């Protein structure tokens, strides 16, 4: 199984893309209508001051049907997922969830995945965790690993082939 199966494009992903599209359409038609642009989400947004993310504008653009523009924009990848917008919205719009749906759509429609996401996904596929055991440095510059600290063996999938078979079902969407 390759990473392509999970993240994009090939025919098997058409169901996933359709599902995401349905979700975004539902968000556009129903949820974004509740938003009255009070911008409480943006006033508390952790990414606003630093990266100029404005969640209320994301909702406004979605409401106008500019889904493709949003999917292709880098700004959707600046969300810190602090969940304050979802918590504080007086209309229960949850911009953070809209951003997750947009990012998923960007990935499923074959736009490049930014940063280390691909590496983490590859690691999950090959051993179950986002990374394997790392060497760590102490205050006195000694390097140590998990077993040298007396910690028990790492818990990870025992049968990787079966583990991948489960994930493969997501890629194939034949459930």
């Amino acid at each position: 199984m390759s990473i392509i199966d999970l993240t994009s494009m090939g025919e098997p992903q058409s169901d996933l893309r359709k599902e995401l599209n349905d979700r975004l359409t539902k968000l556009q038609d129903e949820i974004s209508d509740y938003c009255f642009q009070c911008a409480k989400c943006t006033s508390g947004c952790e990414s606003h001051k630093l990266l100029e993310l404005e969640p209320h504008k994301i909702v406004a653009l979605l409401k106008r049907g500019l889904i493709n523009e949003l999917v292709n924009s880098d700004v959707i990848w600046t969300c810190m997922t602090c969940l304050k917008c979802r918590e504080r919205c007086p209309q229960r719009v949850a911009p953070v969830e809209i951003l997750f749906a947009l990012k998923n759509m960007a990935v499923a429609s074959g736009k490049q995945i930014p940063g280390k996401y691909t590496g983490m996904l590859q690691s999950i596929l090959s051993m179950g965790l986002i990374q394997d055991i790392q060497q760590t440095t102490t205050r006195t510059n000694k390097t140590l690993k998990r077993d040298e600290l007396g910690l028990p063996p790492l818990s990870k999938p025992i049968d990787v082939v079966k583990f991948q078979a489960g994930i493969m079902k997501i890629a194939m969407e034949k459930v």
Partner: protein
Amino acid sequence: MKKKYALFPGCLMPTEQYAYELSIRETLPLLDVELVDVEGFSCCGEPMKSVNQLLTVYLSARNLAIAEKHHLDVFAPCAMCHLALSECQHILEENPAMKERINGMLAAEGLNYTVKRQVVHTVDLLYDQVGIEKIKEHVKKPLNGLKIAAHYGCHILRPSEIGRPDDSENPQKIEAILKALGAEPVDYPQKLDCCGAPLLANLPESALTKTGQKLQAIQEQGIQGMVDVCPWCHKMFDSRQTKAGETVAAKLDVPVLYLTQLLGLAMGISGEKLGLELNLSPVEKLQLGDVK
């Protein structure tokens, strides 16, 4: 009464944030919490939420199903893992069609999710299950009014509609625990600010700036140290403090410990057993026991 949980380590704690795991394994059993190591867990799925949310739900359900197979409740010390597992339970309980779909996939590994089991995090485990009174009974070396800032981490506080370990806007459980240890919890305006870690994957510079801004604010207010309860937050505040300082052009020297490390020190456990040698922030400034 003894509480028993499967320790769900996640990815970050067991592969690099060893101090958290060491201090959890040292302190909790002394407070009558039995931790069971279970084979076969995987990533909780939360780091993949931006890539494919179905994968997140699937991985969380998989881990919950493994705990269920062992008839165990789950202790997830990582805030991200705790959110993923709780949210997965919420989705599967509310949406029978999704539950059936996920179980269809889990069959590949002979697993099945049926019932909602308890999922706790360090904060509610200590405050609600162990209890303040019991913690006080175990304090041998009170912290003598040490001024400490609590950092909760976004994912254990929100979204409150699915039930989180503490209040979303005014959490106080860590403060209560700090008081029980003899420390003086300090309220500060930046308490609910994010550590920045969720941006590490794609915008690492911005992530560190977020970290630096919070630490700088704490330093300027003369707070003696900070405790956190998430391996991602700790990676930012402790492991990468020097780099975070560079992003805000400040020399940061804020001692940062896991809450379980400070708990252990107050319980009289040696710094070595609690993994204090792995903290890269200036923890020696706190002058606690044998910490150098």
